[in-house]
């Protein structure tokens, strides 16, 4: 019986635009347990990003309860939310969101700059370790413009790992990548998950979901399916099956 990292209950999010109200989430409840790799699926506009942003404490629900790692989010101040984002969550975006003209290592160090408990040496050490984990140990000083899309996303993953979060949240992290690179990224996520990191991965691609152990499907702001995956594919194996590229 592993503990729940995330607990949400009747979560609603409404956007008011002038006189119109968009109900992006219409009362969602589920738990994510420690060590789970959950993919959140659904067509465009179904509310996936809205939900993930709330899970990542980037956005607040209109109503409902949200608890991460035993902390109730509802009553927290802006600063406390920032600390949660800093210490408990690793967020990965579709468009990488790396700082331009800034080296990979400095990009990865960024979250630790806002954590006064981490010294300069410690920060550097942990950034290097994180980059090694994603296979970029040799590219520490490369800037985003000197890296491919896949490599940039690896830097972003390293950045999300560097603060030892309880949870990784990825919003269409492979959306901008070709299949081969996407599988490479997925194999990294699988490896991280095997090491015990909990992951919520938003995607609208069916094949990506086969790499996770649970899938939640959203439609128009409601959960329409939530099932365990009993036939988990290995991203590494799938990668080997792909037709070889010509070099």
């Amino acid at each position, binding site marked *: 019986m592993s503990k729940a990292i995330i607990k949400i209950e009747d979560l609603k999010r409404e956007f008011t635009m002038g006189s119109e109200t968009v109900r992006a989430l219409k009362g969602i409840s589920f738990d994510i347990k420690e060590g789970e790799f959950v993919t959140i699926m659904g067509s465009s506009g179904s509310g996936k990003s809205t939900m993930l942003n709330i899970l990542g404490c980037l956005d607040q629900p209109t109503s409902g309860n949200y608890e991460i790692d035993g902390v109730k989010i509802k009553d927290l101040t802006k600063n406390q939310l920032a*600390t949660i984002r800093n210490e408990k969550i690793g*967020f990965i*975006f579709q468009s990488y*969101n790396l700082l331009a003209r800034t080296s990979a290592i400095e990009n990865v160090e960024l979250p630790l700059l806002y954590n006064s408990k981490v010294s300069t040496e410690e920060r550097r050490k942990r950034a290097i370790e994180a980059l090694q984990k994603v296979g970029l140990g040799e590219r520490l000083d490369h800037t985003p413009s000197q890296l491919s899309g896949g490599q940039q996303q690896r830097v972003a993953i390293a950045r999300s790992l560097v*603060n030892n979060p309880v949870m990784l949240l990825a919003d269409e992290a492979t959306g901008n990548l070709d299949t081969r690179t996407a599988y490479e990224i997925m194999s990294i996520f699988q490896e991280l998950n095997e090491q015990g990191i909990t992951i919520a991965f938003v995607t609208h691609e069916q094949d990506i979901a086969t790499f996770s152990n649970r899938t939640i499907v959203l439609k128009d702001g409601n959960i329409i399916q939530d099932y365990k995956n009993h036939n988990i594919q290995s991203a590494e194996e799938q990668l080997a099956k792909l037709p070889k590229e010509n070099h």
Partner: protein
Amino acid sequence: MRLLNLFKIAFKAIVLNKMRTLLTMLGIIIGVASVIAMLAIGEGSKESIRENISSMGSNIITIRPASASSSGVRASADEMQTLTLKDYEAVKEQATFLSYATPLVTGKGQVINGSNNWPSNIYGVNPDYLKIKVVDLQSGSMFTDSEVKTASKVALIGQTVVDNVFPDGQDPIGQMIRFNNIPFTVIGVLEVKGENTFGQDQDDVVIAPYTTVQKRILAIDYISQIMASAISEDDAPNAVTEVSEIMRIQHQISHPSKDDFSVQSMEELISTFSSTSEMLTLLLVAVASISLLIGGIGIMNIMYVSVKERTKEIGLRMAVGAKGADILMQFLIEAILISVTGGALGVLLGLGSTVFIEKFLNWPTSVALYSIVISFLVCAVTGIFFGWYPARKASALDPITALRYE
């Protein structure tokens, strides 16, 4: 620790935008440089006026006739005959804050030596005059008290007179000259003093015993001025008060508003002139401050652009844990770094142009330390003031809104 990190972040942002930062700084640089240069010019001219006036004798006190403000018809000071030798004697005897005093009678006339002649001024004084005016002799000697008593026809002349009536380079000592047809024996030549602050040639002068000038040249028995020197510069104000009181008793004046004389110290003269140059300095500084203000607005403008441009970056920083205060500090530090660096460069440029002005334009300058300190502080404050609003705006952003910003 955290602050140091924010410094690093701000510094990096500046380095990544070198050219833009430099252009932003330009306003501040020019502003500070001009404040410093303007103040240096103002201070310099004030000091040179002070030095110039002081060189005429900084503890000199002059007593002149003046029309009482209550009397109906005003006569010009030259025509007034209210100052007498009795006044001089009273002042000389009673004043305790004075070290030297002399009566002064002045006249204009023609100095003639053979076929050379030259229009000049004659000052009738006693031997104390040289000590009051702090003038030395190039050659010869001063006349004595007994020569004053006997109204001897002896004179000392300034270099300008020497140049014009002894053009052949002959030694004037012992020679005979005529002033308004009265023969005088030249017994001394005054040290060269050059022009004074008012552009008068201080070497265009003939000095003789006041008795001689009164009787033989002007045929008067009053005197035009009493000149004295206070024991020290600090005692000058006391001397002025004391002399005024003595004079009031002499002239039986009941109230200062009815004074028929004026007593003035050199110190007062200096402050009169300093205050005009202070006005000028103030004006220059006002103009320079405006350019500093414009520099500040430049910073605000660039910080606004910077916040707009980096909205997405701000969103990302917040997403990975930056607090509002961190973002605020980051942009504030950036603004302060720009303005303080600009200030430092401005100080250098200001000092440089001051040296240039001194060397090539030959204007007297004097850099005041306070002008550097003040303009530096103003820069830091400008940075905080004009950086605050954009920084505040950045820190108030909502993480998700900022991240979505295109």
